[in-house]
């Protein structure tokens, strides 16, 4: 079974603060892929990152960074020096075991106040 838990329903920060969005996943498969998507107020989901289960290196892309830890089944997302434009709902997702589908977490709504 695949499951993704995003325990933080809503987070509110002030601009320039750092913020970490948590994602915990469950799967019995050894090969799997993890994703993060952003859903801005316009509604369309935008792909941010994909990570496979054999690559535990952390990744940084500008102000965004991702911390993948298999030992705790977590794939957390950090935004450094947050900006108002980062306000959105962020989804973590999992696809495992050669399956064609993807399971999404419930999402975390991030509000960045000026």
């Amino acid at each position, binding site marked *: 079974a695949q499951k993704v838990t995003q325990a933080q329903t809503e987070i509110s920060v002030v601009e320039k603060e750092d913020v970490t969005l948590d994602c915990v996943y469950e799967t019995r498969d050894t090969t799997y892929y993890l994703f993060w998507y952003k859903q801005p107020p316009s*509604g369309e*989901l*935008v*792909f941010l990152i994909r990570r496979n289960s054999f690559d535990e290196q952390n990744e940084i892309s500008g102000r965004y960074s991702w911390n993948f830890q298999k030992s705790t089944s977590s794939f957390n997302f950090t935004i450094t020096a947050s900006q108002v434009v980062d306000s959105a709902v962020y989804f973590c997702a999992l696809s495992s075991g050669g399956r*064609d589908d993807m399971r*999404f977490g419930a999402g975390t709504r991030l509000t960045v106040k000026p």
Partner: protein
Amino acid sequence: NAGVTQTPKFRILKIGQSMTLQCTQDMNHNYMYWYRQDPGMGLKLIYYSVGAGITDKGEVPNGYNVSRSTTEDFPLRLELAAPSQTSVYFCASSFGQQIEQYFGPGTRLTVT
């Protein structure tokens, strides 16, 4: 490239009515998906297709039907609308399995 397009953007249905949500992609993707997004619940997969002529059920298929006669189009049919189908519906596509999906802008459906 228009990417993934969905029509209509909004729709109000009465209980028992039927309708088709349209989805088209111009990226020549083999895989296409239909999700519904309920408040605070994330996205749940309704149906998906791995190529023209092939469809399969997702997590919440009841009350819906799909067809895939071409690579580009993947319509979602609601036969007897129920209030429980009030949701935002997203269509997505991807080039292959377990890689990033590209999403359409969504259709907000209300059944009253």
